[in-house]
């Protein structure tokens, strides 16, 4: 009996498993199942020669000190594509985050070099952040409950601010 059924059962298990194909599939930047913030970034100004990378980060509460700067999410943060073709148009982004409220969503420009808490002021610049549509002088608040969309902002390489701008 065992001999009779082992073969067909094995083949059946393989067949069932093969039918459940769950490999990687194409996925838009911000799919329906995405949890976090989605939006676009528009670039302004020339890319500084000393550029290393531009991170996208979010803070649940606005940092109160330099130490708080390292409480960003997610870790590691995603980066923006900086080749000239990618900077010529709006660039879609997706920032994976837990559900919650985020009071500062920004692009952080990083100069070439090894980053530490000690040299953050010389290597990091705020290059642009999501603004309150009702008062564009203020940072906008984003509530994530699944997917938060439309969080669009400008990265302006001609108007970047060092850490000491916020925490003298």
């Amino acid at each position, binding site marked *: 009996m065992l*001999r009779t059924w*082992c*073969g067909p059962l*094995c083949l059946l*298990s*393989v067949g069932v*498993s*093969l039918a*459940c*194909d*769950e*490999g*990687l*599939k*194409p*996925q*838009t*930047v*911000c*799919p329906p199942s*995405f949890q*976090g913030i989605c939006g676009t970034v528009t670039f302004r100004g020339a890319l500084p020669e000393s550029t*290393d*990378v531009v*991170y996208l980060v979010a803070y649940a509460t606005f940092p109160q000190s330099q130490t708080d700067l*390292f409480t960003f999410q*997610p*870790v*590691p943060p*995603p*980066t*923006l*594509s*900086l*080749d000239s*073709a*990618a900077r010529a148009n709006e*660039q*879609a*982004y*997706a920032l*994976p985050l837990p559900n919650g409220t985020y009071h500062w969503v920004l692009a952080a420009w*990083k100069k*070439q*070099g*090894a*980053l*530490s*808490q000690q040299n953050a002021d010389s290597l990091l610049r705020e290059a642009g952040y999501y603004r309150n549509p009702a008062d564009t002088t203020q940072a906008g608040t984003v509530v994530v409950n699944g997917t938060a969309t439309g969080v669009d902002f400008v990265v302006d390489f001609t108007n970047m601010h060092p850490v000491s701008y916020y925490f003298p």
Partner: protein
Amino acid sequence: MKTGVLIVTACAVPLVLMGQGTGSVTGAVNDTAGLAIRQARVRALTSGPGARLVASTQTTDAGMYRLDSLPAGRVIIGVAVIGFFPAVDTIEVAAGETLRHDFRLRLSPVTLMPTIVTAAKRSQLLDQAITSVALVSREAISARAINTVDEAVDKAPGVQFINGQVNIRGSSGFVEGLGSRVLLLVDGVPANQGDRGGINWDLVPVDQVQRVEVVKGAGSALYGSSAFGGVVNLITRELPTGAHARLRATAGVLADPPQPVWGFRDYTGIQDGVDVSASYGQGVVRGGLAAGARHSDGYREQDKADHWQVSGRGEWRPEPAMLVNLSGAWASDQYQVPEPWCQSGQCTDSGQALQPFRIDTVNRGNSTRSDKGYVTALVTRTPSARVAWSARIGWLRTHFTDQYPGRRPPFAPADFSVANRYGGEARLVTRRDTGQIVTVGLEATQSDVTSNVFSGDTTGGGGRHMQDEYAAYAEAEQVMGPVRATLGARGDFLTIDGGGVTAFVSPRGGLVWPTRTGSWRASVGRAYRAPSLAERFVTTYALGFRVIPNPALRAEDGWSAEVGRSWTPLSWLRGDAAVFWTEARHLVEPSITPSLLIQFQNLQRARLAGLDLNVTAMSFAPHLSTTLAYQYLSAHELAHDTVPERPLLYRPRHLLTLSADYTWHRIGVGADWRYSSRFERQDPLFPGDPRLEGRILDLRASWTAGPLEAHLKVANALNYIYNLAPRVLEPVRTTTLTLTYTY
């Protein structure tokens, strides 16, 4: 097939008398591991219509034989013994002279239990080992038409590769090839890298591998560090007498991405390669050379690779009981580095969240050149059936240079490492009539590395580090009625850069209890692994973060136990199952510090436990064999401080392999299907990344006609797109045709 039933086939080959007078023939009969075979029947017969037996004898305890009073002229000698293929050779006997002629017998497939050499550092039957051992035969390697040794090991029960890093029962996880918890042996000689402790799977040409023995569970009691999770021993082909040659050519096609939006090139990728080998043996000297080259366009953007290799081996048997073996190999690889894949915004993403076939812009242009080689000298002597000793020395050298053209100061645009590993070992095996077998040995290894990335210099400068290891081990097996009991221990003494000595003692004990339908086995032993020089002193820049050294890293240790059962309940069904358990402390894993630095640190405690099951069924239909291999693994970091218990990274809970092979005359077809469940814990560096199951179907077909063999293989036939290591795409469907001509 019933246990204990073996068939002896005697040779009956004719002899032709060509002259007057008589001569003698003497020689040794050994197995492929070089060990003497005693009580083998050796016979000489005449040929022609009047064929007759002219002399007959049996080998001594040292495997020696002597046939006297043979008629001068052409004589054919036959050797037969239970468990081995009979051997026949034609020789010319000169009147009044004594001719030397040795035999090396191959294990016969009718042997119920194969002989292994790794589990106890000596020759023993598979069912006498106290730990689980998986075997990959030459036939399985040939049938799968593979190009590298890791492909041969990958489908072994309980074994999984994650981007080139081998896991036995979930031992290593994935740490970018650093700090393997599996020890690689080449004919018993350790071959892990001196700097990273990892494994260069392309060091030995797959065409030169006769079989692979995978010993599961802690092997530190005999092999010391690196054998924390198991041992893989590559047994290379024996050198036959006479002149032989082999040509192996392979060509293949790599599938395009199944989704047009993932497309990255406008041509079809190919891979090809050629291997040639030749050997010659006569009298007491045998030698062989092999060379090969491979090219692949790769299946991803920035994925081209080239490989060259040469290897050689020589044997000299100055006396029947003694064998001197010299071997060496050199391999060079130059390849582009296609990792990590491109996330949205990091390349021309076409609006996709990820482009798994494309490289991100930051890592464009990265490449590696890797050269490695080894030379080994081994002397074995078996003066009697009761005593055997061996001694070896070896040198393994690795040299890699990673190019990072996109890197900016203060980090160098290239990382390099030159590492040497010098080793020596002396071993003595004694056997008594009381059923006691004792193995004792001494081992010494010195590793050094000169590197800018493993220097420990956080300013990016170069540096040199050295690690010395000295060890003594002893293990005894005693037959007590039906039970074989084993007890042993190994002491390891380790120094870094000439500093203080750190000592480890790794005891092990076990029992094997044969039954009518199989055997039970149980073992418990201590496992330990010293961190590699790379784990201690790595200093680099990765993923935008600084990786800093940790010279204070301490050794991992733990206790490993298993209870296993092999059984043959029905003539067509054979199985092996084991329950295993490892309690580990101080496992070395990469961690992110509060100040956002990456550093290798010791975990508190971890537990790896599970079930390993392997069932082979013959004859569901004529000429059909099927195998099921399943591993259940529970691998957790145990709770400590504020950290709750959580799964270890990169360990699947379920690993299942189903294989089937059907042969009909000269034609064979087969398939392997491998399933691995998704990792339970998300990578902390990439929390949003997909975690996928592995569902891989490999198909194969073969055709043999005399010296010519053709093998067709379709790996990942369904072109299942997935990853195991973070942001590294696993291979796509690859169709390969391999032709082999043997002379």
